[in-house]
């Protein structure tokens, strides 16, 4: 089944995906700084961040009101709002939009929650096809170590507690993340992910991302892509 709408605007959409603790947010932040420093107009959009929807999501989470279906739908609503109001207009204007998580997050998480696979894929059919999707491949234990080792207190839905996997929140988180990881892995080929080995050093991962961006976009800013300065920027690792 074909997913997504082709992006006919001059802008570029770059997506990072991976399980919690895979380091993707760090990497997309470094990549967008690099692009910005080279004169690109860069915008950023994060999963679950629509000002119009987030109050509903927050309340639903706090009161534990979600079923797998409503959890899926409210995240699709949030995604749609960011796309309609922010991402699509900016791409039409020629910006580079960096997205921390995209529809693939729903494809992995919601299916693990028991939502029908073809239903959730259809739900996001209005999404624009990204130019590049970086998938941060992380062994489960490495990602868990990064999350559970820190001060981060696990939250109910984050740990998949709604699935009754275990009464222990850490154990539930482990099982939940393991299943999400398996879903991601099964999408690599189908969705054309660029796989980044997230066990490498931060710098090595960033170098790899930059060389993929140069390979895909060229070292000169493509025609139509917005710049912040007069001159043509060259991308160098």
């Amino acid at each position: 089944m074909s997913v997504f709408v082709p992006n006919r605007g001059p802008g570029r959409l770059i997506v990072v995906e991976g399980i919690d603790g895979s380091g993707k947010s760090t990497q997309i932040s470094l990549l967008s700084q690099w692009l910005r420093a080279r004169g690109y107009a860069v915008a950023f959009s994060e999963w679950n961040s629509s000002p119009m929807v987030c109050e509903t999501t927050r309340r639903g989470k706090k009161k534990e009101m979600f079923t797998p279906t409503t959890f899926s739908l409210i995240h699709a609503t949030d995604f749609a709002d960011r796309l309609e109001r922010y991402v699509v207009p900016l791409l039409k204007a020629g910006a580079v939009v960096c997205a921390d998580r995209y529809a693939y997050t729903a494809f992995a998480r919601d299916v693990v929650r028991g939502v029908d696979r073809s239903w959730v894929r259809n739900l996001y059919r209005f999404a624009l096809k990204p130019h590049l999707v970086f998938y941060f491949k992380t062994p489960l234990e490495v990602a868990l170590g990064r999350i559970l080792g820190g001060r981060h207190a696990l939250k109910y839905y984050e740990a998949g507690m709604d699935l009754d996997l275990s009464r222990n929140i850490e154990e539930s988180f482990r099982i939940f993340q393991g299943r999400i990881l398996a879903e991601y892995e099964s999408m690599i080929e189908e969705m054309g992910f660029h796989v980044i080995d997230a066990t490498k050093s931060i710098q090595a991962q960033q170098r790899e991302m930059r060389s993929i961006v140069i390979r895909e976009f060229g070292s000169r800013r493509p025609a139509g892509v917005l710049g912040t300065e007069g001159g043509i920027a060259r991308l160098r690792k």
Partner: protein
Amino acid sequence: MRDYANKEPLSYYMTELPGIDYSSLQGRLIVIEGPDAVGRSTQIRRLKAWLEDMGHAVLDTEMARSALAGKGIKEAKLGNTLGPITMTLYYMTDFADRLENEIIPALRAGFVVLTDRYIFSIMARAIARGENRTWIEHAAGFALVPHAVFYLRAEVKDLISRVAVGRGQFDYWESGMDLRFGRDMFDSFVHYQARLIRVFDQLAGPYQFEVVDAKRPPGIVLDTLKASIERVFKATPTGTGKRKKLRRGALPARG
């Protein structure tokens, strides 16, 4: 468009909901659909009193009333940035919350559920705004198949007089002003409501609507609805046993 004529009441259209035991559902699900200002809520109020008088427990429910998303939708509609896809999905979230937390528990307890609008209004609004029909049909495919869908049908001119005389003003969203189908609220209302009626007409066949002429006085419309609901009840006796099989659209003849 898919045809759901062979679907049994209280099964799902396309997609099974996780965690629902469909065989435990035993009440009746009656849907009242139709465009804005056609008189749905008046009819629901009277039908509810009539059903309760006969000793039925009745749950009435309507759009944007869910505990989860009702407030968020109302706030979003006050602003000027609600896009058509976002609006569709927000209403779908609201519908799913009411379906799973109100409608299904009530049906399990043997209630008659009367709903003012269902997935069809969400679908019609999305399609009237140019969204993809297959997309919205699939997205709404987790809805339960009702025992009956009554489509209160009128022409745009009838709606106009109800809005102008009854309410005294045109509503921004009921006029489709987010997409500005005309120069002002009136022009936009006429254009948008005509589109909605056209979409409802297209949905009527595949989703087995019973079309009710709502241009007639409310009392006559009510009598028509009562007679049809009585036929639904006769065809689907509830009780302790399993529901009797009923093919929708194959209700016993009138009279």
